[in-house]
């Protein structure tokens, strides 16, 4: 690598931009504008991660922070209101909040000197486990992307629980928002006309529909590539799952929600959300049945036709597929819930 990279100046520029975006996003009174600026803010964060060399994190930030979460915020605003109302409480309340936040900041800053220096080779993170991962990952798992091998193999439990967190988030939103209405079972067209009488339906945009129809297969192909190629390049189950879910969300937005719900019924959708977690957990159980510890994919070599390291690589792939399934359908279910306000009939 070249010795004189302008990384430092680049980072300072990005940091200034991030702070600017944060201030702008907080000071815009219109929530819609704030949501959009917030998307740009999280893309600046993505650039910072990329500048630090953490490409996997940058990818996740670009997919989740800048992409899907902005869509979620937009559909939430669609069902609530885009104008801010000032809270009751007045000056004393604001002062109290200010004092609390300042105190919390002071406490956090007071813990700062206890951290090791940035990039210190003797810090615990760099001295104990990181050298082991760097030296042994290729030999143990045949996975060149260390992030993937650490995430799905060495730290398999953590990732299992992360996937369960996504699952729980989906279930929570589902159980809060979902409304069982008797009418929602019958999709009668006259009911639609009664609730929303548009003289001219602006959602019938031929350009948007055809463009989306053209883009969706490529998005899904790219997402599958991201999942499957996560061993060798940035990416993996989370990012690929988000892009897969986003492609279906794109269908829901550019056509309408009914078009999507005709293909994805509610019950199979929620079953698929759960099945990803189940796949992950089943891989772990299979490792136990073949004589290893839970999520110790190396013991799968008695089933798979390869050696121990390749078995670990394949185990990582299986686990990533499980993560991808859960994330994809969680994104879809969350979007449907938010956009249709829990009625599962029509929405954004």
């Amino acid at each position, binding site marked *: 690598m070249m010795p004189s990279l302008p990384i430092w100046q680049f980072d300072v520029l990005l940091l200034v931009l991030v702070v600017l975006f944060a201030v702008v996003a907080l000071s815009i009174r219109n929530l819609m504008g704030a949501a959009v600026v917030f998307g*740009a803010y999280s893309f600046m964060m993505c650039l910072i991660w990329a500048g630090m060399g953490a490409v996997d994190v940058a990818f996740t930030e670009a997919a989740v922070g800048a992409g899907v979460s902005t869509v979620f915020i937009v559909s939430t605003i669609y069902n609530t209101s885009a104008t801010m109302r000032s809270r009751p409480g007045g000056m004393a309340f604001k002062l109290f909040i200010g004092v609390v936040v300042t105190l919390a900041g002071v406490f956090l800053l007071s813990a700062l000197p206890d951290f090791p220096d940035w990039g210190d080779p003797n810090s615990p993170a760099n001295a104990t486990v990181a050298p082991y991962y760097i030296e042994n990952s290729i030999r143990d798992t045949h996975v060149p992307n260390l992030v993937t091998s650490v995430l799905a193999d060495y730290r398999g439990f953590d990732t299992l629980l992360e996937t369960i967190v996504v699952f729980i988030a989906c279930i929570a939103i589902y159980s809060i928002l979902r409304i069982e209405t008797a009418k929602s079972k019958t999709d009668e067209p006259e009911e639609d006309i009664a609730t929303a009488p548009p003289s001219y339906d602006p959602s019938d945009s031929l350009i948007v529909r055809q463009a989306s129809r053209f883009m969706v297969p490529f998005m899904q192909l790219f997402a599958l590539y991201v999942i499957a190629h996560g061993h060798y390049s940035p990416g993996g189950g989370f990012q690929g799952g988000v892009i897969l879910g986003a492609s279906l969300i794109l269908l829901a937005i550019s056509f309408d929600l009914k078009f999507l719900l005709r293909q994805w019924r509610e019950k199979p959708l929620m079953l698929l959300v759960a099945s990803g977690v189940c796949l992950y957990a089943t891989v772990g159980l299979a490792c136990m049945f073949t004589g290893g510890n839970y999520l110790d994919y190396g013991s799968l070599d008695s089933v798979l036709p390869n050696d121990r390291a390749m078995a670990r690589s394949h185990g990582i792939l299986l686990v990533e597929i499980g993560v991808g399934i859960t994330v994809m359908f969680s994104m879809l279910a969350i979007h449907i819930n938010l956009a249709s306000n829990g009625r599962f009939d029509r929405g954004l």
Partner: protein
Amino acid sequence: MLLVLVRAFKGPTVIDRLVAINVIGTKSIVLLLFAGILFGQLEMFVDIALGYGLLNYIVSIAASRYYQHRRCLEPTHTANGGQPSRWKS
């Protein structure tokens, strides 16, 4: 990029903000690829840029769909007691 940010901040209508943010996204993709060239690992950053480009498209579609549904985009909209030809922002 700062000029675009000013537009995103002041922007009298939301449309200004939307377009400004789209421009920022496009410029950021280019920045991301420049970072890739700097690091000498362009193939990794191309993936991220592709993913971001796809999702940016979805965000634009979602936001414009929001305005379509909310009927904010019609200049002759006079909902607030005859406030003429002023886009609600």
